[in-house]
């Protein structure tokens, strides 16, 4: 039972990590890429770590996997938030299909939406 759960959790995690990395390649601008990468990779790695914990049980390996999972859950959103803010301030262009950009409007800067059709 537990090993079946471990296998399911492991594979769900692996599939989500793969899809998140694919999103990193497919999406058009850095902010959309960040969305895909952050969400999928966080949950994927959580699934993998949970699978490792269920497979190994209460020994140093499993406990460290849980600690690593909690750490990743707390830090990946923070780092993506910091990078998104940094790239907005540095003026990295938004994709041309972007509808609205209240952040630059409120700061009174020039529009950083990519031009095109």
């Amino acid at each position: 039972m537990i090993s079946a759960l471990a296998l399911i959790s492991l594979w769900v995690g692996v599939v989500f990590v793969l899809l998140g990395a694919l999103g990193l390649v497919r999406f058009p601008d850095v902010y959309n890429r960040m969305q895909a990468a952050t969400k999928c990779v966080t949950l994927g790695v959580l699934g993998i770590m949970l699978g490792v914990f269920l497979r190994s049980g209460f020994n140093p390996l499993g406990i460290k996997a849980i600690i690593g999972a909690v750490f990743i859950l707390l830090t990946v959103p923070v780092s993506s938030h910091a990078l998104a803010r940094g790239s907005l301030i540095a003026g990295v262009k938004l994709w041309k299909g972007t509808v609205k950009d209240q952040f630059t409007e409120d700061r009174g800067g020039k529009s950083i939406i990519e031009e095109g059709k």
Partner: protein
Amino acid sequence: MSRRIALFIAGLIIWLLLSWTLNYQEIIIGAVIALISAGMFGGYLPLEAKKLLNPVRWFWLLVYIPVFIWQCLKANVDVALRVLSPGLNLKPGIVKIKTSLKTEIARVFLANSITMTPGTLTVEIQDDTLYIHWIELRSTDPEEMAKMIKGPFEFFLARIFD
């Protein structure tokens, strides 16, 4: 002072979990390191002891975790479908919403939770204003947008941290 004691206890617990042994030498080393780090960084801990010992807040934290995991799973399926669909279904935009949370730590947790919910990414927090990058703009009315973006999180975080 109470913050330093809380950080010391948390550090010691993490050390014991990482080393996973009850050998007295390990415990002494861990206690010394936890003491040093608590002395150096305890002042930055944005929690109050009065709130930390309140069991009602811990109860709401326990309720909050399954809600968060459910939202997280929904977000991932949403992104996965977008990645696999040929046209990507994008209509992104950056919008701003207001929050009624008072403390810094509650706002930080709200921002993190918003990042993990479907299609939204927190870009900037300025006092009570959050700037959100939204992958598919489904509304332009501020009230409605705030409700869609924040989901159930503000309710729980107000009870846990405020």
